[in-house]
């Protein structure tokens, strides 16, 4: 919609202003790493972060959440509970912005998810353009997620002493005009922005050996590839790869009742196709018993199934699954191995 300039010194007052009206969630230090968390002091906000352990999807689909409360007995009652409030999600990298767009589709098409959608509706997203790779595992360039022109309300690009702020929505515009001290971008600012954006591309060197658009077709011939058995040997089936994935959205639902068995609540938490129990059904049958079948399923979700369902690849190249895997299973190596032997 329009481009504005926000001095770096104006970030703290901007965030402080937001904190009065919104829950502000942004990247914070967590030991030597980073995690999205509630910002209670603008100094906590680390816009210089590389990557968070969990993606910001946890703000929209929390790890654990209560879906409903109920009473038991003669006249059972069910009351949905949606815990959502006005939130600003601040400093989201472009790979995660792409992932949220995908989650929006997953939670709104076919079976609209009231809990996700309510939170999504109340969340204003401030994106942050990536100017260098988070680390050696970032392969966003291959996945086409290195930049974006949608999926945010406001988007920041670091110009050195100031941020360029792209205003994409009415919500973003209101937020900026209400809490931000900005000036309109000049021609010189726009030239500087173009320079910065142009200079970033060569810095991203880690990538697939082939065009990611080939992935769905490539995988359609790879169901019986020997790679799966090899990964099955190494995989611990710990579920970390999917738990840190910004586009994985599977969950499990359980009921908990009180001690008197008169009332209870329905809960959901993140689930993972890598876990033993995931494809188990009553009677003890497990439809994806072998670890190799579960790893194959993950690769196929990311490179084929989600594409077939939503028209875009299920991987945004953030590299979190590579970092999280203690057994060093690497999705880029995996895809490249299949390509190399296809």
């Amino acid at each position: 919609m329009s481009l504005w300039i926000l001095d770096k010194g104006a970030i703290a007052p901007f965030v402080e202003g937001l904190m009065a009206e919104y829950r502000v969630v942004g990247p914070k230090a967590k030991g030597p790493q980073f995690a999205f968390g509630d910002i209670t002091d603008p100094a906590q906000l680390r816009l210089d972060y590389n990557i968070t352990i969990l993606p910001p999807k946890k703000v929209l689909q929390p790890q654990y959440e209560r879906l409903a409360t109920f009473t038991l007995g003669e006249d059972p009652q069910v009351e949905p509970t949606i815990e959502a409030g006005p939130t600003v999600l601040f400093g989201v990298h472009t790979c995660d912005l792409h992932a949220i767009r995908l989650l929006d589709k997953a939670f709104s098409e076919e079976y609209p998810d009231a809990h996700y959608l309510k939170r999504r509706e109340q969340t204003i997203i401030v994106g942050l353009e990536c100017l260098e790779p988070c680390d050696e595992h970032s392969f966003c360039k291959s996945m086409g997620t290195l930049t974006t022109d949608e999926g945010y309300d406001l988007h920041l690009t670091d110009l050195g002493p100031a941020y360029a702020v792209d205003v994409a929505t009415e919500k973003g515009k209101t937020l900026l005009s209400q809490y931000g001290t900005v000036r309109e971008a000049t021609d010189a600012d726009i030239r500087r922005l173009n320079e910065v954006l142009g200079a970033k591309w060569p810095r991203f060197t880690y990538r697939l050996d082939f065009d990611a658009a080939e992935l769905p077709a490539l995988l359609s011939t790879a169901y019986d590839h020997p790679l799966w058995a090899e990964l099955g040997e190494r995989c611990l089936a710990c579920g970390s790869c999917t738990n840190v994935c910004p586009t994985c959205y599977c969950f499990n639902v359980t009921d908990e009742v009180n001690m008197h068995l008169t009332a209870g609540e329905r809960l959901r938490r993140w689930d993972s196709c890598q876990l033993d129990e995931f494809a188990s059904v009553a009677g003890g049958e497990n439809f994806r018993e072998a670890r190799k079948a579960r790893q194959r399923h993950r690769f196929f979700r990311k490179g084929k199934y989600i594409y077939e369902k939503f028209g875009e690849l299920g991987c945004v190249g953030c590299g979190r699954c590579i970092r999280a895997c203690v057994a060093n299973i690497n999705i880029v190596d995996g895809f490249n191995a299949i390509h190399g032997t296809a």
Partner: protein
Amino acid sequence: MSKPKVAFFDFASCEGCQLTVVDALQTHLDLLDAVEIVQFREAMTEKGEDYAVAFIEGSCTRPSDEARLFKIREQAAVVVALGACAHLGGVNALKNLHPLEDVRQWVYGDKAEWYETYEARPIDAVIQVDAVIPGCPIDREEFVRVVKALLLGKKPPVPDYPLCVECKLKENVCLFHLGKFCLGPVTRAGCGAICPTHGDGCEGCRGLIPHPNENAMKDVLAEAGLTVEEAVARFTMFNTYQVKDRMVEEEAK
């Protein structure tokens, strides 16, 4: 509906799990509305024998333990293993790694022959166990959840997935990224990943998950810098009874 009568028993153990039960009773007073405790040496003087549910802490380490276990099994409709010693054999089973005579000499010296101890075993090696509450000690909230499930006649909700799940969902920094060691990828969750959350690697007190990839775990530990002896020490801390035979097999290779 009359309240189910419940009894607590202990075998070779530190009684820490029963103390955790006492603790849970203080924060969940409604537990006492739901069940009637008729025997609990740790916490009361009365001693009723008409129990329907038996919670057993501790491992079986003597022939005389077997007779007591059979008697409990005969009376109780439901037997629950309480904590790592009852569930796994636990730290007590570390002695199984050494010749029994040496162990007895070490502990009892010249009185060794006065004592009838033998290899430590989990109680399901002796009698049928209907449910387990894992951990060293047990988690008090999980104890409450299991009791509720038993009251409903449902399978207790003890997770079958590994600790890494709870640790990741808490967004802890992975201990392997900090140069530490952890059995989280092969250990049953349910403790809220309490040790890794406080910076200590998991030692496996809740037992291994149903299909642990032990070979991959050993590779990961080796790559992280653990020697074979150190890796074995980690695996056997609580799970000697479960991994000993395989270890002996491997050593023979």
